[in-house]
């Protein structure tokens, strides 16, 4: 369908074709924006000495949110990795929850201040608890998918990881297991071109991470991770396939890590500013906003309204979390085993 807007440019409405309503795409954008704004605030808090550690999803929100919206957020399970703020927000974690985690406070639903930021987990929202050793979450998602099959449930599981992490045995063992047993799981590799300082070219010798799918007898696709609609489409297809009992899929989303690896990293040592700047031009947050503007969904008024709202939400979350109590020291002895 072609839509002619007032500025005389012609932009095709892509989301209708995918079965997405105007409200849904606006909600997608709002979730991406919220993830970005929370992330940015966390860096400020880190540089102000208030938050010890930040690991960032900037540049990957489009892939994360596009994927999450393609899932059934009332039923499906997600095993996110540390950059997936977009996924966990879409699955029901709040800005307050994220700030509580950032500050390591007692009421952090992920871990009560036990884990570093970015180690997500919240059972009520079906966000599976994660750890630091990369890729261990992949077999877990396969285990959830196995349970879905055994229990004849309709949910799928969705797991993400970086391209560097796709070299770990757990990716390969998990992918193979899932495919042999035709399990309803979606593997999504968020390829952001770097694993800390090591570029893609030194991680893998194959052309695409998705090429790895063929070795496990599942479909593998590579898509533009800056385009939430393309990611939505691919994940939707994979989820449908999984629910039909046809097994797992591997999706590779191509984007770029816009920040250093974490607040402890200085990326100027291993990549140039020009490279980062040119990646910023393709930043999914901005390109998606342009799309929504061009089809007259994202209006000036809405943008300024949301800017206001986001500021309020994040100020509130920050103040709330900063003034919230830490868990008391004697709680470290609890929950080693069932009590």
């Amino acid at each position, binding site marked *: 369908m072609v839509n002619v807007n007032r500025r005389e440019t012609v932009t095709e409405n892509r989301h209708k074709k995918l079965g997405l309503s105007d409200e849904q795409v606006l909600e997608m954008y709002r979730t991406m924006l919220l993830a970005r704004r929370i992330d940015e605030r966390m860096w400020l808090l880190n540089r102000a000495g208030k938050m010890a550690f930040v690991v960032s999803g900037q540049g990957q929100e489009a892939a994360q949110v596009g994927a999450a919206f393609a899932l059934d957020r009332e039923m499906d399970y997600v095993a996110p990795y540390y950059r997936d703020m977009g996924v966990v927000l879409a699955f029901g974690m709040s800005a307050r929850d994220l700030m509580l985690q950032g500050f390591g406070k007692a009421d952090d639903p992920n871990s009560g201040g036990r884990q570093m930021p970015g180690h997500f987990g919240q059972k009520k929202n079906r966000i*599976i608890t994660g750890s630091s050793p990369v890729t261990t979450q992949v077999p877990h998602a396969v*285990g959830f998918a196995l349970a879905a099959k055994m229990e004849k449930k309709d949910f799928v599981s969705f797991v993400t990881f970086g391209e560097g992490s796709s070299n770990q045995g757990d990716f390969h063992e998990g992918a193979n297991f899932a495919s042999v047993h035709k399990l309803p799981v979606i593997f999504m590799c968020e390829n952001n071109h770097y694993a800390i300082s090591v570029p893609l070219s030194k991680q893998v010798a194959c052309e695409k991470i998705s090429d790895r799918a063929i070795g496990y007898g599942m479909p593998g696709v590579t898509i533009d991770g800056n385009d939430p609609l393309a990611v939505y489409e691919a994940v939707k297809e994979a989820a449908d396939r999984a629910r039909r009992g046809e097994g797992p899929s591997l999706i590779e989303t191509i984007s770029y890590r816009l920040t250093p690896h974490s607040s402890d990293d200085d990326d100027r040592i291993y990549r140039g500013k020009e490279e980062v700047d040119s990646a910023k031009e393709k930043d999914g947050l901005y390109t998606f906003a342009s799309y929504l503007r061009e089809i007259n969904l994202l209006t000036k008024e809405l943008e300024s309204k949301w800017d206001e709202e986001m500021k309020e939400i994040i100020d509130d979350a920050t103040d709330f979390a900063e003034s919230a109590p830490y868990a008391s020291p004697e709680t470290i002895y609890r929950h080693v085993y069932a009590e």
Partner: protein
Amino acid sequence: MPVINYIQAVTQALKEEMQRDEKVFVLGEDVGVKGGVFRATDGLYEQFGEERVLDTPLAESAIAGVGIGAAMYGMRPVAEMQFADFIMPAVNQIISEAAKIRYRSNNDWFCPITIRAPYGGGVHGALYHSQSIEAIFANQPGLKIVMPSTPYDVKGLLKSSIRDDDPVLFLEHKRAYRLIKGEVPEEEYTLPLGKADIKKEGTDITVITYGLCVHFALQAAEKLEAEGVSTHILDLRTVYPLDEQAIIEAASKTGKVLLITEDNKEGSIIGEVAAIISENCLFELDAPIKRLAGPDVPAMSYAPPLEKEFMMNPEKVEHAMRDLAEF
């Protein structure tokens, strides 16, 4: 009471737990049609079908990791490592994941998986089919390690492990599988995890051990009994976390303690047992704490005389017990 062997107790426990609870399932290499390389899962595939007795690809980290995921969802997986020696690819999943899931999520998630693995030597298995691997996992709070010695204990403890809400490493001595027989009641029973068991009451010396060595100690104790030496034998049964109270009581009872393991000596379970005794029983001891263990070489050899030199046996145990009695 019927007499069955050690491996039959494993099979019975699995079968009865699978009948009792539909969430219980078995996964591992060759556990299905073949019924396991040791036949521990014999008959389960026929009875419960391929979905609940799952032949997995040959990949231990996935066997553990997929089991962990299913356990977090609410299933009760019993994962089999074909040999304890091949648990190494799954160590990350067991230590970084299973052991820490409850703790790291502040009790939001938990992981009720049981991981079974045949361990131990004396079966001509050489370096990689003979090892004792418990010490690798025995400083991982969040994990429990069960190592039963008798068919009765196997059955009761395996059932409790499956029902337990935390991950359990259940280590079965492969030489005991068909060698050790014992009475097992027909009625349903379970045994508590974390509790040691007195296998023989005695007054002169105390032996604290676990697994197959319990039987070596019982045999040696019978011989020494004829010579007038009375041996108290404590079977640890759960080697992590240890039953401190039972260890202190057993050590204090005679004041002369021999600790035995088939594992290499340095860094083994019995070093921790010795530490508990020395912290708590100074005034009760009448002799230095003695340790009898495998040598500190990487693992057991294949050729019979070499294997024998490493492997624990009743003669070595008897010798050490007599030495202690004479101290």
